[in-house]
């Protein structure tokens, strides 16, 4: 029996069996692809995923087995070669037939994945709106009119942080980790507690260290003072973290200790950071000299605190001119 003499009826049947197996295996594989597509709509659980994997494996085995069977069908080398070629042609034909379908499935999968991501994002936004905005609107309808402004302010702040400042999400959940974040948190706290608007403009940022925390605490004290005595006018806070160049630092400060410090951080030319906070209100102002020695707010909580941590505080005020507290500190 040689394949080259032309196939007998028995040979034809024998050749058809592996062919049928290939078709069946392909069908199984395609079915899985389709199932995966449906799985997007159904709830694709892990078990379902494993079942699909098992079926795919069976499909691959069936196709592979049939190909091997086809290739070893004949006895002679020539028959084997022609069988392998036939198998390859069969395989490529199968791929060609399946390709458009598979591509369409992939495209659908992609579109559905996009849809799912959009749906997730919408759900996230909706959840946030529900937790914050809707909740607040409900509160406002039931609240005392005096509290409404405060609620609206707090909500605006939270929404802004959420929309524009990804760092802001940690605002009320955890302790702020950066200087600007801490200044914003202090401003928010005073805003809530004292019912005044605090506008914060922050330039630059740096990780919050021990001395900087003291600086923020002093700023908080200044804010509380402004909130108490400025008659409800908005308070402006400007916080800036500035890189100070070696040379500029030496020129400005000039003392030996500072020069050494500059040299220590030098190298790339960048030496230290200067941190400044300005807290300004447009209230009635006061006479600084007339403040009693027993009033510890400015003397201890602001000026003293800054001095203890190597910083500097200045209070500029006069009756009728508002008040501005300036805090300055250098850090590496």
């Amino acid at each position: 029996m040689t394949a080259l003499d032309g196939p007998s009826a028995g040979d034809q049947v024998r050749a058809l069996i592996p062919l049928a197996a290939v078709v069946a295996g392909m069908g199984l594989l395609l079915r899985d692809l389709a199932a995966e597509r449906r799985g997007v709509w159904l709830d694709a659980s892990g078990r379902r995923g494993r079942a699909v994997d098992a079926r795919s494996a069976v499909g691959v085995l069936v196709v592979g087995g049939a190909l091997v069977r086809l290739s070893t069908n004949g006895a002679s080398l020539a028959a084997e070669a022609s069988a392998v070629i036939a198998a390859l042609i069969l395989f490529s034909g199968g791929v060609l037939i399946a390709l458009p379908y598979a591509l369409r499935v992939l495209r659908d999968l992609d579109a559905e994945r996009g849809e799912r991501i959009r749906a997730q994002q919408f759900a996230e936004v909706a959840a946030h709106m529900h937790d914050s905005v809707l909740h607040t609107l409900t509160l406002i309808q039931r609240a005392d009119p005096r509290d409404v402004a405060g609620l609206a302010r707090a909500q605006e702040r939270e929404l802004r942080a959420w929309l524009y400042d990804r760092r802001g999400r940690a605002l009320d959940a955890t302790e702020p980790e950066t200087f600007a974040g801490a200044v914003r948190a202090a401003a928010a706290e005073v805003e809530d507690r004292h019912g005044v608007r605090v506008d914060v403009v922050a330039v630059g940022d740096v990780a919050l260290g021990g001395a900087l925390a003291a600086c923020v605490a002093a700023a908080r004290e200044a804010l509380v003072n402004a909130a108490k005595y400025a008659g409800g006018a908005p308070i402006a806070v400007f916080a800036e973290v500035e890189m100070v160049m070696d040379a500029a630092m030496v020129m400005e400060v000039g003392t030996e200790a500072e020069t050494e410090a500059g040299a220590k951080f030098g190298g790339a030319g960048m030496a230290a950071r200067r941190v400044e906070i300005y807290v300004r209100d447009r209230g009635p102002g006061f006479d600084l000299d007339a403040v009693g020695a027993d009033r510890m707010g400015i003397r201890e909580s602001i000026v003293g605190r800054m001095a203890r941590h190597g910083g500097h505080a200045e209070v500029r005020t006069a009756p009728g001119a508002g008040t501005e507290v300036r805090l300055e500190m250098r850090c590496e």
Partner: protein
Amino acid sequence: MSDPITVVLVDDHQMFRAGVRTELHRAAKAAGAQAGAPIEIEIVGEADETARAVEVIAATRPQVVLLDVHLPGGGGVEVLRQTAPALPDVRFLALSVSDAAEDVIAVIRAGARGYVTKSISGAELADAVRRVADGDAFFSPRLAGFVLDAFASGGAAARDEELDRLTPREREVLRFIARGYAYKEVARELVISIKTVETHVSSVLRKLQLSNRRELTRWASDRRLA
């Protein structure tokens, strides 16, 4: 009594437009009562979306357009792109609730003469409109903060061209504005004339609009991820 300043108001919220109209009217009156020579502000047109805004601005040719950054149909940048080149006499003042640096910097770089937030008081807004109508720039504290941040000397200052840097005096002026000082107060603090303050602010605006430093755009878009 001088002619009223003509203004077109572009914002997609009708309530907000109504509020601005009332406040500008009231503020102009109050200022007029003080100064004796009132400068009226007259709203000659309103629009609530981009295409309509382009039409209204072309038809009314106002002195100042109060332009919201976010609008249906393209937004403030698109309005500027379509109208500013053809109408060089019309000045744009961005007025937005947005806190996003990239929104603000984009609209300034497209040609707006200033940026104020919607929480601004009526009197301040009237002042800003007058300044912009006079050909000056107007920076709110927040814009001053954004600009300082964008032009911060991040170490590579040496290779920057002149346009990409702020002079020490410009920085000083911006820092006062960021601290909440009015132009008049900045002038007093630095012992310079208001005119000089205006010159510094205008030159910063020019740098913002002309500066070709790539970082400026990237800086603004990175802010959201920072």
